[in-house]
């Protein structure tokens, strides 16, 4: 479904991604782990087109991004890519001047031109599925961190993305709430979504991710089936990281 081949990203003269390759199959979850500064966020920003890659390629269905495209062509393809990829950032970036409901229907009504009523009933259904139906008329700042995160997930889902990407979704959640989030994500996957989840928390990914990818210094050290990486990592660096994280 999405395939990255030898991704290279430079910033300010430093090489942040040094040839990252992986592939995510439809309706599976890829978990990305790695120490702080290993390039996980940068990788996500390349995948959703916020950063332009300096080498390698990203393929998503029939869309292909590569470094040597012209700026206009690159951004044209990124536009197509974004129709299929939704992202929930660590800092959710909800729109503070809009209610929860308006946050969710903003893009469907103005980008996809869905009629407002239809968008609203879809949004209410989404809010119901994340347990926030009663808070549709609230403003984001009046919600708790966990509630805000579920609004951000609903906002991304409202655009019907095939792939959903998360950056550190558990950083602001207590253990009970991260368990709740995990079951929410699992039910989302069962409805046919594919996911890439960057997380520090191996406990969170355990049982959620099908595949795991361990990064260090902008490189993929090891990747494979989640249970294999967690139980019998081949590379000593992966082993170190997982032992420390546990």
């Amino acid at each position: 479904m999405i395939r990255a081949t030898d991704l290279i990203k430079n910033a300010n003269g430093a090489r942040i991604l040094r040839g990252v390759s992986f592939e995510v199959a439809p309706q599976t979850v890829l978990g990305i782990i790695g120490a702080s500064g290993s390039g996980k966020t940068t990788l996500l920003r390349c995948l959703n087109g916020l950063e332009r890659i300096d080498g390698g390629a990203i393929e998503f269905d029939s869309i292909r991004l590569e470094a040597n495209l012209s700026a206009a062509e690159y951004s044209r393809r990124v536009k197509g890519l974004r129709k299929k990829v939704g992202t929930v950032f660590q800092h959710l970036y909800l729109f503070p001047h809009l209610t929860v409901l308006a946050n969710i229907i903003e893009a469907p009504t103005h980008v996809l031109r869905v009629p407002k009523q239809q968008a609203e009933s879809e949004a209410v259904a989404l809010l119901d599925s994340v347990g926030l139906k009663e808070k549709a008329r609230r403003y984001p700042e009046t919600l708790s961190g966990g509630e805000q995160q579920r609004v951000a997930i609903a906002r991304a889902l409202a655009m019907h993305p095939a792939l959903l990407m998360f950056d550190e979704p558990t950083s602001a959640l207590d253990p009970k709430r991260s368990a709740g989030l995990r079951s929410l994500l699992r039910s989302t996957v069962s409805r046919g979504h594919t996911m890439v989840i960057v997380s520090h928390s191996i406990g969170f990914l355990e049982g959620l991710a099908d595949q795991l990818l361990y990064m260090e210094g902008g490189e993929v050290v090891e990747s494979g089936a989640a249970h294999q990486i967690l139980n019998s990592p081949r590379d000593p660096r992966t082993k170190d990281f997982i032992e420390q994280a546990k």
Partner: protein
Amino acid sequence: MPSPVSKLLWIAACLLFSGNVSAQQPLRWGADPSGGAPYVYNDPNHPDQYIGYEKEMVDALAAAMGRKPEFAPSDWETLVSALQRKSFDVIVNGLEPTSDRQKQIQFSKPYYIFQLALTVRNGEQQIHSLADCKNRVVGTLGNTAASRLLQKENIPMRAYAEPLTAYRDLELKRIDAVIMDVPAEVFYVSKSTTLKRACEPFFRGTYNVGLRKGDDALKTEVDAAIDKIINDGSLEKILRKWGLWNDAQLELQKPAKAGEKNVDVGYDITSAAFNWREAIWRLTRAAFVTVLIAFGSMVIALVLGMPLAIGQWKGPRPVQWLCTIYVEFFRGTPVLVQLLFLYFGLPTIGLAMPAWLTALIGLGLNYAAYESQVYRAALEAIPRGQWEASYLLGMGPVLAFRRIILPQAFRIALPPMTNDFVSLFKDTSTAYAISVWELATAYRELANASGQFLLLGVAVSLYYLAMSLPMAHLARRLERKLQRREAIEAVEAEIN
């Protein structure tokens, strides 16, 4: 070391031999030298020196009184109040002894008989007398015999601070005629190739020296000195030198030469009787002009500020530079200078606008520079993540800007925008420089004509407050309305 007693004796001796103590005090005289030709003005060849026929006359008067003249440059509109505040002791500035001024100060005997001259453009066919000006606009200096005559005759008037600007506007066809005392007219028009007299000079009035009430000894001294310089011909010599001598002046000589004492020459002096109803009506009109200028220029500022802000913020390099130059130019130079430039500078390239429109556009251009900075700061305050979240939801830059960034920036910009608007209201007073009849101009002229500085000041302040308070109130309501829904939700959140 002298004993205290001898010291006292010495002082007493000094007093005795010096005769009249006041004779040694300088003659402190006040006049407005700016645009003051030919009365008293800065010598164009020696800008630190003053010249003028009245300057020479005061020198002669002071010599006759055995004093040294000491000039206190002042402002025409506030001459009378400055005299009362003892900033100087006499006014010598072509001052007419009008009855309302006589309520505040006293006058010496006249030293000059003046007439009024009506000036029109060379091509003018229709205006041959003041009566022909009924439906025209006539320029003159504020608070003079001429301005009062126009008011009495109900002729539309533009009041100027300087003769030069009045004649300039006449040449630019912003007004149809200028009426001015003959001395100023002779100085400015006699060499002009574009202006001419509409008719022979008419009306007669006198210039007298203004003194504080109660300074009777000084008045006697000044009267005697005036007699002296009229009788010994030194005044005539000065007037002839400046081309101001005419036979009318002989009337002043006659009684003086016949030795008759203190004959005040009574002429028909037009004096504006102060009328509160009239004053309030004129203030109201001025307030309307103020509102018009303030709102009009704010609209320009708000509209023009946005492209400036975006150009300076996200535009290509050359656009960024141009916007920065614009902003720094308008913020870095006084708005007064900008207005004068627009009003007097632009006509030289064929762009002459009426004064109120010049003020409206000038203030608008000026405040656009400030508003652009308010916008830019507000736009830059929105986190980059808001843009990125919009892009990731498939929005383009225009949609993201309009729907996501702008509404958030507007809230940030609203309080400083309101502040700017209130200060813009106050800055409309700079339109005085180009003779727009707005509130501050109205206050100066009405108060100077009546001496009612306090009451009129209160009235004008009330007008300003009546205009700016609703603005501030409106802005606060808007701000609250924007936050109300959120506040309600916040309260609900507390309850839940």
